[in-house]
């Protein structure tokens, strides 16, 4: 049985990818970024955060850049950046569809 492919990112995964756009981050910083960016709308439980990081690392969307004691810092790879861009395009297409539908109504 193969692993599920990540064809569509969930909202949580999308924000985790977004958090790496400007700088390298560790787990706690990612959670803080997502909470601040979404004003608390999207929450990252401990299970969700670390499962996403493990999966992104496996998919080579992120890679570990430093380990300081317990703190592990990750950065976005080119593959991760491309995946983020794909998702943004998909979301933009969704918004365009919504707007065209609203104009017709």
């Amino acid at each position, binding site marked *: *049985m193969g*692993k599920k492919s990540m064809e569509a990112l969930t909202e*949580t995964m999308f924000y985790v990818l977004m958090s790496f756009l400007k700088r390298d981050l560790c787990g706690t910083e990612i959670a803080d970024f997502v909470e601040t960016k979404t004003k608390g709308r999207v929450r990252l439980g*401990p*299970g*969700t955060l670390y*499962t996403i990081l493990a999966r992104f690392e496996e998919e080579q969307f992120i890679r570990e850049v430093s380990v300081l004691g317990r703190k592990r810092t990750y950065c976005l790879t080119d593959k991760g950046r491309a995946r983020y861009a794909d998702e943004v395009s998909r979301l933009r297409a969704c918004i365009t569809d919504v707007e065209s539908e609203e104009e017709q109504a």
Partner: protein
Amino acid sequence: MSIVKKLLPIDYLDMNGIECWLEDLSRQGLAFVKFGSFFVHFRRGEPREVRYHAEPLGALSAAMTKEQAYYSAQHGWLSVGQFGQNFKLYCALDPETEDFHTDPVTQSYALDNLNQKLLRNSVLLCVCIVAMAALLVLPALTSNFGPVWHLVEFSSPT
């Protein structure tokens, strides 16, 4: 400190069942201590309303599991040990603590690893059973007289 030992009344892979069972016992004053070879050990104390979460092992590296345990503790989920070979058990002393998993799709990734591990074990078990059956049957089939001779030998009056 009195220790109470109980047999697990549910399937050891029933995550939700395990969590509910431990929460029920906590309301009766039994706090989880460890998962022994045959029994689950509890410490008798005051009844408490707590939450348990069983997280499948194997989805994260050892280092990431440690970091997750540290981060979880900061968010109210204390690591209380391992439950069997497949789960790490967390306990939230405040029932209002935010869920351990906030994204069900991501949680399914954690379960994927457990699923694959169990599938591998099942395949290995099947191979072992076939190998053992072959070891028992082949000598009889390949002997000079075969299984019919054995039947004649054992059923003949002496």
